[in-house]
């Protein structure tokens, strides 16, 4: 019995097995493209399907998506370059994270990827110097709210968000990869120590480091919105670098559970694996998107949203934080 796929498994299949799009009719293409846009994966889809037989109208839409991704890549690399210039006098390693890292290092995970803000990782001891250098070079605070600021500085894994005055682009400066209030405390120093240096002096995490970061971000930090894109990132990293030494490093950062879960879900979503137990719930959440681009499965989504805050903060703090936010709203 074959059930018509009406969630983002349609998209997952097209990415994992591009040839499977043969035989899609106009409605099928429309649903696939709309889902891809909603999941920020249309650039990736365009790269994966490049060269395959498809209607002219679809060809043109995907060509546009590729052009958009290329433009995004250029803008992201420029932000990284401007950050490099601003921080050149600060004596500390500057490590690019996420999408910008993938494109800076020319990884397959960067192909067609949509990139948002610039994320960098620096040693905690250098935070003040980094903050000062960025402010001097034209970045400004986004939200001047004292309570949020105190919360951010004490508990979060990053500075409050900064935006560049002229270019209108944001930078997030991290000193570790998970909030300090989370139950898991990765070894930031080890991540920095293991980083690779690019030609221009900026750095990226090691391949295992990038993988572990992506898994941490996906399962231990967020509510799984954008999960499909993050999973695809991880799948690309595995394809390119393999999993040598991954187990040991994940253990070191206390992220074994998250990393193994990622691998199992990738196997189930993008290969022949079968999901069991709570993995199925995660997959339900990750594929909760319909052919009109709407988020579906509201109860599952709510459960993950509440969970994500619970993971970030101890319960007493969570209650107090939500109370304060509610009072101020």
């Amino acid at each position: 019995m074959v059930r018509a796929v009406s969630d983002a498994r349609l998209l997952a299949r097209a990415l994992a097995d591009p040839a499977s799009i043969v035989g899609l009719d106009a409605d099928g293409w429309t649903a696939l493209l709309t889902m891809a846009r909603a999941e920020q994966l249309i650039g990736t889809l365009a790269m994966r399907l490049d060269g395959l037989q498809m209607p002219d109208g679809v060809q043109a839409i995907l060509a546009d998506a590729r052009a958009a991704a290329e433009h995004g890549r250029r803008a992201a690399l420029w932000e990284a370059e401007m950050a490099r210039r601003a921080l050149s006098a600060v004596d500390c390693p500057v490590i690019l994270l996420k999408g910008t890292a993938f494109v800076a290092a020319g990884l397959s995970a960067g192909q067609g990827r949509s990139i948002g803000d610039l994320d960098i990782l620096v040693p905690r001891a250098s935070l003040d110097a980094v903050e000062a250098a960025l402010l001097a070079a034209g970045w400004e605070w986004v939200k001047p709210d004292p309570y949020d600021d105190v919360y951010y500085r004490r508990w979060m894994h990053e500075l409050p968000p900064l935006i560049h005055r002229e270019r209108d682009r944001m930078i997030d400066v991290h000193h570790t990869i998970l909030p300090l209030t989370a139950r898991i405390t990765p070894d930031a120093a080890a991540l920095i120590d293991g980083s690779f240096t690019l030609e221009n002096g900026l750095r990226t995490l090691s391949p295992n480091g990038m993988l572990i970061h992506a898994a941490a971000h996906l399962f231990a930090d967020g509510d799984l919105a954008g999960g499909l894109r993050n999973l695809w990132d991880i799948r690309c990293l595995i394809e390119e670098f393999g999993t040598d030494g991954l187990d040991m490093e994940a253990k070191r950062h206390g992220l074994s559970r998250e990393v193994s879960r990622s691998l199992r879900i990738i196997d189930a979503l993008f290969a022949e694996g079968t999901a069991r137990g709570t993995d199925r719930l995660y997959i339900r959440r990750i594929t909760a998107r319909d052919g009109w681009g709407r988020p579906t499965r509201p109860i599952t989504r709510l459960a993950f949203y509440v969970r994500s805050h619970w993971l970030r903060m101890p319960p007493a703090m969570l209650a107090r934080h939500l109370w304060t936010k509610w009072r101020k709203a």
Partner: protein
Amino acid sequence: MRHDFSVRIGPVGFRIGSDWRAPIAELESLYCDYPKPHDGVPDFTVRLFARRPWRRIIRPSVEIGGDYMLPEAAPLPLRQGLLAAEMAMNLQMALGARRYLLLHASAVERDGRALLMTGVSGAGKSTLATLLAAKGWRFMGDEFALLDPATGLIHAFPRLISLKNEAIAAAELAWPDARMGPLMPATPKGDIRHMVPDTRAIAAMDVPATPALLVFPRYGFQAETRSVPPAEAFVRMTQASTNYVAIGEAGFRALTGLIAAVPSVAIDYPDGASAIEQVEALWSAL
């Protein structure tokens, strides 16, 4: 979604999904002579939806969604559903169009050459385009003109003409037989009524034109014409284009090419008749 409709306007295909029948019925009626998206696959998806299930029926209010969305956008009452659909389609164009440089300008064509009129809301570009079309020019669009970076040609985007306040009466006078949408009083932008472009405009929507004149109209002043220096024209056009930055190099080449090839003229005008006279004079002097 419960109800839906697809349409192609110039080179751009849309599908509109709605929780209510009414806006879809209006779109079907007004766009009845328009073609469908290429290969049945639209370029953009728009959704008109109720935030909560009961809001579909109780004080129904239409939220706008789609491929591209603005999170703070205020919903509209159901009776302005057609306006919501048009705004949503504009938004997709403004945020998502890549193949063409989007110029915030009206356009009309004669002998294969295009006249572009650009300016802020209220400058009169919609009305002027409508009036010129009534005098024999081919109507190409009232809101967006599409500049192809590869060829330098202008492509038509003849969506429903959005007439506001006094422009409604002026257009009804110039086009007594035109098909019109419902009058929507007191929207956030004043009174609005949509007019369907004439048959010729719809039939010729896929025929591009060479840009020949760029006009910056200003309504409500004594008649006057002045040349606009290239740098000023260039800057005003980048401000008037929502996707200039997004398309990068292609946009730079296309826009500098346009400014170099085509005279830029500012006209002040007291009324429609005067504007038409000034435009015709400029056109013959080309």
